């Protein structure tokens, strides 16, 4: 009986003892395969196993949004996913946003222009939520839509207004390109 994971047939009895599984995935454009414990959270996998510490962990119960990343282009909470569930997936984290030469992308730049971050702890989560929103919605959103788009991310410092301005600016600069 195939119980789990690509190319690996393990019978159920052995599973009882085994506590390592393998995942093959693509992170920020790089293919990789790793052996991990099944209980490892995707957020910890990215941070601890891959050293991608830009993804932050603020609550580990799905509310704060600091750990938001893209899985197959969609925004998800990496604290509410097991790393093993990312098997076969394409993952994007905040580290993927700026270009190779280090220049900021449109939304990152808009954040800097609008003082949309203070301590910056929440910022990667916001950026990833907005990144996926902008990919899926080319039309300039209304204020209400913008608020809704970021309502799954908590920021304790900024009071959100500058994040909203940043999103507006990102849309206008995208549309004027």
């Amino acid at each position, binding site marked *: 009986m195939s119980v789990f994971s690509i190319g690996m047939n393990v019978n159920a009895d052995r599973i009882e003892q085994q506590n390592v599984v393998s995942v093959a995935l693509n992170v920020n454009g790089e293919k990789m395969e790793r052996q991990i414990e099944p*209980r490892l959270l995707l957020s910890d996998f990215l941070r601890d196993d891959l050293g991608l510490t830009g993804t932050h962990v603020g609550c580990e119960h799905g509310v704060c949004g600091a750990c938001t990343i893209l899985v197959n282009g969609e925004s998800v909470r990496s604290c*509410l996913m097991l790393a093993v569930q990312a098997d076969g997936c394409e993952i994007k984290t905040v580290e993927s946003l700026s270009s190779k030469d280090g220049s900021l992308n449109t939304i990152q730049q808009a954040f800097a222009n609008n003082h949309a971050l203070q301590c910056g702890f929440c910022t990667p989560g916001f950026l990833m939520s907005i990144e996926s929103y902008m990919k899926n919605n080319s039309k300039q959103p209304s204020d209400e839509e913008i608020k809704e788009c970021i309502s*799954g991310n908590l920021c304790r410092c900024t009071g959100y207004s500058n994040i909203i301005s940043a999103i507006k600016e990102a849309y206008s600069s995208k549309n004027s390109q």
Partner: protein
Amino acid sequence: MKPPKFSYHRPGNYAEALDLLDQYGEDAKIMSGGQSLIPILNMRLSTPKHIIDLSRIDDLKGIRQEGNMIVIGGMTRHVEVENSDLIKKKCPLLFEAIRWVGHTQIRNRGTVGGSIAHADPSAELPCVLTALRGEIVIVSKEEEITVSPEEFFLSFLLTSLEPDQLIKEVRFPIIHESCGYAFEEVARRHGDFALVEAAAVIDVDETGRISEALIALGGANAVPFIPEEVERFLIGKKPDETILKEAAVMQLDDLDPEGDIHGSGEYRRHLSGILLEKALCRAADRAMEGVEI
């Protein structure tokens, strides 16, 4: 806040899943989107020995029409419901309700089967399913059965599911195009679980009298509640404001909401009346749109 140890199983098909459930049943937890289960694991409120991940079972995914039913596979994600034209057209009540489920990031992972199985009394999908008199298709190695929401939802986070069973699909009856519908909810903050929610469908005949009324309230009882007296009362009446107002509060005494820090039982009961009135009014307005009297 790290999950306890468990063995992880990812059956590639349906039969394997049922075998695994048969074998590990009591010690296992099914995982669909994990949006409710993983927080529970992270807080170690539950320590299952086995996790059976349904994400690779394609048979459990998808939205289709079967006769007068919209059938949604258990492993179908909320976002797919949100983006489905079929749902928008044939099941507009569900379409209206689904956006109230958490936030985008939650809906990108959370599933229809998971929502139903989790049976949170404030969750949107159980309320909609109950209002529409939908069905839940449950399978185990032994059998496949179809149950009504009333049979399925037993109490707060408690369902009739046995350890060896899983939700295969959820069936939402298609409402007639002439029906009006509305879903109303209030929550402390946007995206929070509802304090109370109301789902209503109303149809009117050519004379403008109500010919059908389907209603459910969520968050007002341990399980979604159908105010049957209200439904009966409305039949044959003209949906004017006074009637709907009267209807909305008729059965409040039958509600027994749990109080918590976000709202006392009494307050939730009070809200139930208000939201039901709003839902009825909006549904009736929509129903009357096509009627010329």
